[in-house]
């Protein structure tokens, strides 16, 4: 009935928002990040366990918020698990491009995350789609800060 709505809220996205995957917390040895969108109240708690070589060994999240923010975080955790740091950073960049600009041929590595391309028609919702990814970006920074830098943040 409304193409843009149907594109935004595809069944996979609604399914992930209602039954988020990797929902929870990694207790030991994980980087913990809290992210939120203060203007809309969406929240996420992300735990990322990095391997010694920086690869994403495991990732879980807990969150509250709209379907877009929750589905995006859920799909993100599925895709990030097992990726090297380089791959993960590449994915972060590719996903941001996907939801903010017209990408003719989104990279295959994004998998089902490509279903979130509809967000680009709704500029006010980009921050919802990016919430989990911003938290992941922060986790990468925290990891770098913890291992490389000895200075206090």
């Amino acid at each position, binding site marked *: 009935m*409304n193409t843009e*709505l149907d594109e935004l*809220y595809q069944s996979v996205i609604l399914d992930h928002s209602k039954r988020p995957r990797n929902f929870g917390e990694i207790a030991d040895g994980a980087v913990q990040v809290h992210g939120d969108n203060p203007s*809309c*109240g969406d929240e996420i708690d992300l735990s990322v366990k990095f391997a010694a070589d920086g690869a994403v060994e495991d990732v879980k999240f807990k969150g509250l918020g709209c379907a877009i923010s929750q589905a995006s975080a859920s799909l993100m955790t599925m895709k990030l698990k097992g990726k090297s740091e380089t791959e993960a950073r590449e994915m972060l960049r590719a996903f941001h491009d996907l939801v903010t600009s017209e990408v003719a041929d989104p990279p295959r590595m994004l998998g089902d995350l490509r279903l979130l391309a509809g967000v680009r028609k709704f500029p*006010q*919702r980009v921050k*919802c789609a990016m919430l989990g990814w911003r938290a992941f970006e922060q986790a990468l920074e925290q990891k770098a800060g913890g291992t490389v830098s000895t200075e206090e943040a």
Partner: protein
Amino acid sequence: MSKTIDWTAIRADFPILDQEVRGKPLIYFDNAASSQKPRAVIDAVSRYYERDNANVHRGLHELSSRATDAYEGARTKVAAYLGAASAEEIVFTRGTTEGINLVAQTWGAKFVREGDVILLTEMEHHSNLVPWQMLAERTGARLRFVPVTEDGTLALERLGEWLTPEVKIFAFTHISNSLGTINPVADLCRAARAVGAVTLIDAAQSAGHLPVDVREIGCDFLVFSGHKMCAPTGIGALYGRAELLDAMPPWHGGGEMIVSVSYERSTYKKAPYKFEAGTPNIGGAVGLGAAVDYLEAIGRAAIFEHDLALTQHALAGLSALPGVHVQGPRDRRGGLVGFTMDAAHPHDLTTYADQHGLALRGGHHCNQPLMKKLRLPGTTRASFYFYNTTAEVDRMLAILADAVRFFA
């Protein structure tokens, strides 16, 4: 009803309503955030800039005296609109937020001391919370809150527990912007007076929606925003009882608010001018005066009755939708309805509605602590005004019924 009002003709006074959004006729139900403007207000502002514009109070030329007359004329209109004893009790502000900050920073700075209590309620908009937090931080005063009960009203039967003689000021909203609750403001003011507390009413949601008479209510201060009642943005007013305004120090320093200035010191004008430093928003005040005339011609009692009928219709329809939960009290409420839908977060629902030309508001409505207390991620709000129609409410209900299925 004493007179028959042609609401269809009144709706035609609002040019903006006659448009399509995303290919659908616009339904504007975000009036609690900002109302639309009638032709009469738009024209009054245009006419002012086309014919009369100049600075006020100083110029000795024709245009300046016209601008001054227009500006002071608007003050007189606002005074009459609120039932104030005189125009000197009306201070023009940018809106509700600025009015509250003015009181907190001038009256508050002079009269609030360490150990005093500032009493608020749990249903205040951030604008009637943050300025008081700042005052409490500066002075060492304590904040106290009248709780909101399960049904969305204030716990009035226990008011005495919070409204004690330590309370210096009791600041509360007339109509809750998220729950729709209408507070019994006259009773609250009487109770505050009995313990010697000064009162401030946030009339942002009421000034354009129902009769408001400051002397009947018995408040000390009352603040509102023009843009929620058909006037332009950036103009509003603070009503203050003359005795209180006189006792308050000035706020911003500058031109317009002084009697004489030397390099070392200055003397200040009396209220309201000592609170209006700098060139004021003259065009905005003219628009506010025109809005007051416009609303008075319809009648606020009739406006309230109209909005209430839409609200009742919406409440009945929403309650019949599966998985939809209406917030706030059933009666004694203003023209807005906040609700949640099990299937959809407020932001998803407002995006959905927007795609159907329906402007709703989704989120915490600047009521973050209240939403937290009610354990809500926010609500979706439909807020009505006199140019809205029953047909529009029906259209909204149909769109929401579709949304229940869409997000299921």
